[in-house]
């Protein structure tokens, strides 16, 4: 049981080049499940491997339970890791794989067997203890890797995209199992993934990294409701938040020629920044869809993704209904006027339909047009 602190921790592969991890500050409390998430190349895996002792710490420090880990080799850190491809020892049986860390720790043979049996029971691997990894399915291998991590009751669990080699269905069920197991064992866990759904569903708190820098470290709800910048806003949520660069007006902002009024206090805040434009974010579910011609911004539906429980409309915004001539580009990706809207399932909306869209004022997120910071 331990807390983990990243204190200005950096990893620089080549002197002078951009750091892979840039002065990362992160405090993981005892027993907490923290997810590091970000696109590829964001430095999330590097950060995890620094904590594991598999990458050098080139600047700052990483502490486990207040103990500085700089210069401490992995084997002396008392942490366990689940690798993306599981890294099971191919020549050892499932039981031997799970017993290996105990053997290295000098645990006596009978005690080893006992612990392995317990872990195997938890993970439903009891019948497979004598098999070699290659005789197991992907999901079973994943559980062996988990088992190898939990038998020795380490101070910290590290998991590096442990679900990415599973099929979609397996991934969802294992996701829940891992989260439940972690709660039950109460071991501090740092989990790396590129999948924002995993991050949102599993983590007590989520740290979002991009370009080696921490973007935001918060609970999933906070991350979703109060993204710290436009990058976070765009990364978290599926489909992504609609982001428009829009001019400021007297009463608010102008989107596709339509003025959206903003509350007075918000306008006051914007006024202090000396900007004429702002990045406006609206989540897909924050729109109200009405019939064409009614109040709202005219839009044409280009694609409908019907999911049953709800549906996503991909459309184009316009100043007036007349601008939505049929031959105008569909899905040009020009960004500015493309919009995603979530509606209830089976709304009856079809491709080519004309609709009107009204964003809810509470659902508006405003970001600085250059720095991307939340305003």
């Amino acid at each position, binding site marked *: 049981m331990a807390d983990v602190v990243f204190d200005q921790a950096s990893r620089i592969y080549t002197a002078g080049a951009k750091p892979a991890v840039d002065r990362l500050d992160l405090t993981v409390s005892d027993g907490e499940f923290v997810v590091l998430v970000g696109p590829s190349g964001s430095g999330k*895996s590097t950060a995890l*491997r620094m904590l594991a002792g598999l990458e050098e710490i080139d600047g700052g420090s990483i502490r486990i339970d207040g103990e500085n880990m700089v210069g401490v080799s992995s084997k002396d850190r008392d942490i366990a890791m689940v*690798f993306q491809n599981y890294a099971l*020892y191919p020549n050892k049986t499932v039981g031997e794989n799970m017993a*290996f860390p105990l053997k*290295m720790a000098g645990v006596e043979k009978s005690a080893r067997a006992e612990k392995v049996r317990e872990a195997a029971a938890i993970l439903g691997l009891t019948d497979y203890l004598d098999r070699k990894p290659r005789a197991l399915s992907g999901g079973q291998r994943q559980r062996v890797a988990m088992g190898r991590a939990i038998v020795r009751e380490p101070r910290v669990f590290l998991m590096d995209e442990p679900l990415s080699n599973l099929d979609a269905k397996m991934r969802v069920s294992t996701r829940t199992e891992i989260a439940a197991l972690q709660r039950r064992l109460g071991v501090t866990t740092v989990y790396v993934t590129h999948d924002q759904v995993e991050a949102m569903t599993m983590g007590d708190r989520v740290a979002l990294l991009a370009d080696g820098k921490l973007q935001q470290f918060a609970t999933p709800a906070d991350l979703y409701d109060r993204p710290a910048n436009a990058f976070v806003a765009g990364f978290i949520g599926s489909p992504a938040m609609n982001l428009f660069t829009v001019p400021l007006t007297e009463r608010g902002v102008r989107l596709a020629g339509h003025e959206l009024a903003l509350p007075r206090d918000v306008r006051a805040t914007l006024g202090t920044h000396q900007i004429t434009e702002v990045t406006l974010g609206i989540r897909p579910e924050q729109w109200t869809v009405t019939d064409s011609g009614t109040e709202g911004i005219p839009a044409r539906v280009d694609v409908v993704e019907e999911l049953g429980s709800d549906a996503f409309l991909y459309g184009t915004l316009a100043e007036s209904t007349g601008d939505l001539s049929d031959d105008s580009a569909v899905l040009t990706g020009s960004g500015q006027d493309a919009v995603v809207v979530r509606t209830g399932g089976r709304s009856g909306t079809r491709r080519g339909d004309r609709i009107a869209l009204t964003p809810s004022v509470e659902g508006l997120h405003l970001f600085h047009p250059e720095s991307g910071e939340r305003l």
Partner: protein
Amino acid sequence: MTAATASGTTTSPNAAAPVPRRTGRGSGALLTVLAWIVGIGFFFPVLWMVLTAFKTEADAYTDPPTLFFAPTLDNFVEVFAGGVGPYLLNSLFATVVSTLLVLLLGTPAAFALSLRPVKKTQDVLFFFISTKMLPVVAAIVPIYVVVNYMGALDNIWTLIVLYTAMNLPIAVWMMRSFFLEVPRELLEAASMDGASLGRSLREVVLPIVSPGMAATALICMIFSWNEFFFAVNLTASRAATVPVYLVGFITSEGLYFASLCAAATVAALPVVIAGWIAQNKLVQGLSFGAVK
């Protein structure tokens, strides 16, 4: 994310099992017959050698050649009575000891060129391979002079040293390619599990690379056993190996096909068997690991 991931996790099937495709039945049968004819054709001289070894000299010297005969072991008895024993022992000793030395020197070197690479890995590899490309004949004169000066002519240890040097580059390259097949994560996992480097090598890496090491050893043995140039130039009677023994059969003018074939069979049998066992890794060894 990681600067240098060099994990090769390709578990490709051996050269023995590419993706064979079945052809239509008629032409397929024809091609099968053709393949068998070619196979037997290539093997035929060897087969004929073995058959002749079991003939009497009278049966061996017939025109047309005899196919059916009463087999006899006389030739083998004669070969062993005629003193092939010491040559076989010399060959065996030189082969086994030099192969052990190769593994002893080559395994750590291959490790230092793969899993924990030194900075100039490419240069060192280049150097090793280049030694195999220089003609041995250009070195034989000074080697002879030095060995003569040291009084080490006709000494089996001279051959052992030379065979070790001859096989070391191939072994380093081969074993390096086997080491590279060990996923890097396995070593990382072992270190996370609390194993020291020595422990992880012994417990994790060794079991994985041991089939490759066995193949490497077999290939080194084949080369050492078959080596002739050094053996014929640097040994006389005491340290002479099996290939040198065979030379005796061309100098004696009265040819005895049957006993000659028996001797050649005895000489070739160990390496043929070793090669059959190692055949899947043979190309990997001879192409310095460039081809698997």
